[in-house]
């Protein structure tokens, strides 16, 4: 397993995922900065992501859609809050309507990525997701279920159990 720690902070409503990677910081950054590489891991296999716009500058926007097994294409967006390539990225992640415009009625999460060089090589990647309320957490999860993430999760749990 590459994920070494997942910490949930109930006071702050944040989730922090810490991962140790063998690759250098610049290589790990490419998986965020290059949309073609990003879309290979952002969505689950049943709902692969396609990025349309991808502008990792402060105030920049990314838009993407995911394609489901029934041909359904839920859309999402990022708004870049802060960026310090190749070390950190902070952005809002939300849902969009069919034209790719942000849907303000649906929850928005804030994500913060940090890539730090490890002594002796490799990278520590931390991703902190901040929710604005428990209700939002629940709604995001419900939508994730609609997008077939459960299948991917169950698959993974099967592997872990075996």
């Amino acid at each position, binding site marked *: *397993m*590459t*994920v070494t720690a*997942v910490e*949930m902070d*109930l*006071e702050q*409503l944040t*989730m922090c*995922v810490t*991962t140790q*990677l*063998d*690759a250098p910081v610049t*290589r*790990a950054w*490419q*998986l965020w*900065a*290059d949309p*073609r*590489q990003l879309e*290979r*891991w*952002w969505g*689950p296999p049943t709902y692969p992501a396609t990025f349309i716009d991808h502008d990792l500058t402060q105030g920049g926007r990314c838009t993407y859609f995911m394609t489901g097994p029934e041909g*359904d*294409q*839920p*859309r999402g967006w990022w708004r870049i809050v802060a960026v310090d390539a190749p070390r950190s990225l902070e952005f809002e992640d939300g*849902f969009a*309507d*069919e034209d790719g415009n942000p*849907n303000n009625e649906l929850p928005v999460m804030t994500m913060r990525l940090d890539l730090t060089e490890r002594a002796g090589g490799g990278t520590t990647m931390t*991703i902190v*997701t901040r929710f604005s*309320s*428990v*209700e939002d*957490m*629940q*709604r995001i*999860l*419900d*939508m*994730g*279920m*609609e*997008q077939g*993430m459960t299948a*991917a*999760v169950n*698959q*993974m*749990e099967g592997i872990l159990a075996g």
Partner: protein
Amino acid sequence: MVVILKERPDTDEKQADLVFNALADRTRRDILRRSMGGELSVSALARSYTMSLAAVQKHVAVLDRAGLVTKRRRGREQLVRTELATVQAAQSLLDEFEAIWRARIDRFADVLNMPNEGAMP
């Protein structure tokens, strides 16, 4: 909209907020841990903390409203017991998020290990 929100009664969402607000306090989490093994009286609980009995009673009331504990009277004593089902339901919500991210990071590692075909300078 492509994405359909699962219908969830409003009361459920309010309940979830009560549960997580109740859990977002170190003392209340400690009360839950102590009352997991069986019933404890509020006065016995209060002896474990430096705060007043009234303050502990307040914490227990918050846990009670969230459905995280049940209270029962025995004579002059107020007995508290942790409702494991509610604790587990809250835990499973957090577990689902954790599982989604673990799967995502696994894919990230897979892409990282693929030969980089010069997509980026």
